[in-house]
């Protein structure tokens, strides 16, 4: 019997579900190797109960409904895979806001709208609620990493994810360094690789979409950006777009 898997989306842009559909060359092989029994984004007939070998979950948890959902997914799955930076780190919706959250909501929706009745909370990574067995970061996750992860999981192995920063891949591609040679605020040194240094390869400074490497030296990179005459608040804003909740945690740890 083919292993049963589920694909779920919480609050996000659907990037990972689209990324899965973007594995055009492997999609039929994947469908051949696994039984996708619960995938609301792709099918109108779904089995929302049965035991799953792997659940791939996109998006952050932003309300009580989603919290219940992720707990239920955890319960029925042997492995929970957080797909994309929203699921892994909170993602863009959890970035630093210019003011306190109620104020932000008010500025977007007005002060006396129907929002009072809405079930809305801050965006949190899955790991704030349940155990996550594997994180495939990226905004969106790379299709190649998804396919590699599926193939390792089918072999019973935990997929190997990069643990090194974007600079390593950037250097492998022999790009001119945007941070050192051009003085641009490139987050490559503290950002998890796996994208093959997409942005620097296009002369664009890395914006950290894959989240921080485990021992990201934020203090040092902030100082180095500071040396490039960037205003302090802008440095923080730039470095905290995709993984603010996780960075907060690292900073608490010291």
């Amino acid at each position, binding site marked *: 019997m083919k292993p049963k898997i589920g694909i779920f989306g919480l609050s996000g842009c659907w990037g990972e579900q689209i990324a899965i559909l973007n594995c055009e060359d*492997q999609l039929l*092989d*994947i469908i*051949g*190797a696994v039984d996708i029994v619960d995938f609301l984004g792709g099918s109108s007939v779904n089995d929302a109960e049965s035991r799953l070998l792997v659940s791939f979950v996109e998006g952050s948890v932003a309300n009580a409904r989603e919290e219940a959902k992720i707990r239920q997914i955890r319960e029925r799955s042997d492995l929970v895979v957080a797909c994309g930076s929203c699921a892994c780190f909170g993602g863009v919706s959890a970035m630093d806001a210019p003011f306190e959250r109620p104020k932000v909501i008010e500025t977007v929706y007005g002060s006396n709208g129907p929002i009072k009745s809405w079930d809305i909370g801050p965006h949190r990574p899955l790991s704030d609620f349940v155990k996550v067995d594997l994180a495939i970061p990226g905004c969106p996750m790379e299709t190649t990493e998804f*396919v*590699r992860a*599926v*193939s*390792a999981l*089918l*072999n019973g192995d935990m997929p*190997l994810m990069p*643990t*090194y*920063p974007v*600079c*390593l891949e950037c*250097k*492998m591609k*022999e*790009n*001119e*360094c945007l*941070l*050192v*040679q051009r*003085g641009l605020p490139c987050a*490559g*040194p*503290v950002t998890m690789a796996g994208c093959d240094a997409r942005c620097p390869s296009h*002369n664009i400074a890395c914006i950290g979409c894959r989240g921080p*490497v*485990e*021992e990201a*030296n934020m*203090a*040092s*990179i902030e*100082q*180095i950006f500071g*040396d490039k005459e960037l205003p302090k608040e802008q440095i923080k804003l730039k470095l905290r777009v995709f993984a603010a909740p996780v960075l907060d945690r690292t900073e608490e740890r010291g």
Partner: protein
Amino acid sequence: MKILKMAKHDLDFFASVLPAFGEVYAPVQRGKGFVFDKPSAWSEVRMDYTRTILPPKKLLLPPRETTFSFDPDQGFTDNLAEASKPVVLFGVHPYDIYGLNILDRVYAEAKFPDPYYIARRRATVVIGIDFVPDDKHCAGSMNADFVDHGFDIFLSDIGDDYLVLVGTSRGDDIVVKSGCLMQPATEADFAEYKKRSRIRRDSYKTKLELGDLPEILEMEYNSKVWDDFGARCLSCSSCSMVCPTCYCFDVTDETELGNRAGRRIRSWDSCLLRTHALVAGGENFREERSSRVKFRFYHKQRGFVAEYGRPSCVGCGRCVEVCPAEINIITVIETIRGERDGISSSAPASA
């Protein structure tokens, strides 16, 4: 060694015979930097380049390489044929040739020679040229500013001509193939060479003292300067990626979907990365970033000396160019010798 000369204006013609010996890679411009790449026209080749972003090691020990593929039914198929394609590497600076000679020591001459490296090294014609040092080069201090082997041909600028050192019989084949371009060098040419060699030697802006460095490194093993460097280091690994004598690699297996057929891949790794000495169960022999920064310099300037009689650093200046945190061979040696107060927090060396 056979020593000839060739008029500079004949270089284009000389270049035209090279493709017969392999796919030609030469220094060309990329952004403000330079890379060894296949030039689309010879006019793109920059004889005056400072240093390439990656050293020639990228061609001999590629960043990511499939060593062999495997199939449960068919066993292993190695990738040596791919590694044996002839290449002409034109325009290599002496320190980079020195870098290759150091890689030879580890990859070709030590116990368990590496067949992939050797296949590539054998398939690669190396044509060296001399260079004008900038403020980041310290090849002079590292005794890597002149090489006596490791190349097939070496070109030295002596004004209107190049002095042509022919290092191997394959190099001589190229000379023969280029017809009557080469002429015997004269006394006057040698004199000119010596004059320029002197000027070159004196033109290094950066001078580092290696004499008792291994001993000083031992003395400073527990020094606080490593903590300072460790606090700044981003563990970005740039320094090791661009280093001509850093050769650590990682090995991973990749499989096809729903199958155990696949490939074994080795890719560049770095001792500055957290996982370099991490073993199962979570023990990490170099947990602190400072211990990793220290290890890198210790290995190059102390360990390699003990093992091979010289440091593995060749003074190319690449880590000086790339480190966002100003941790490089110059700042480290000067700090460790107590000749500078660590690194400043203002603009890095290459603004």
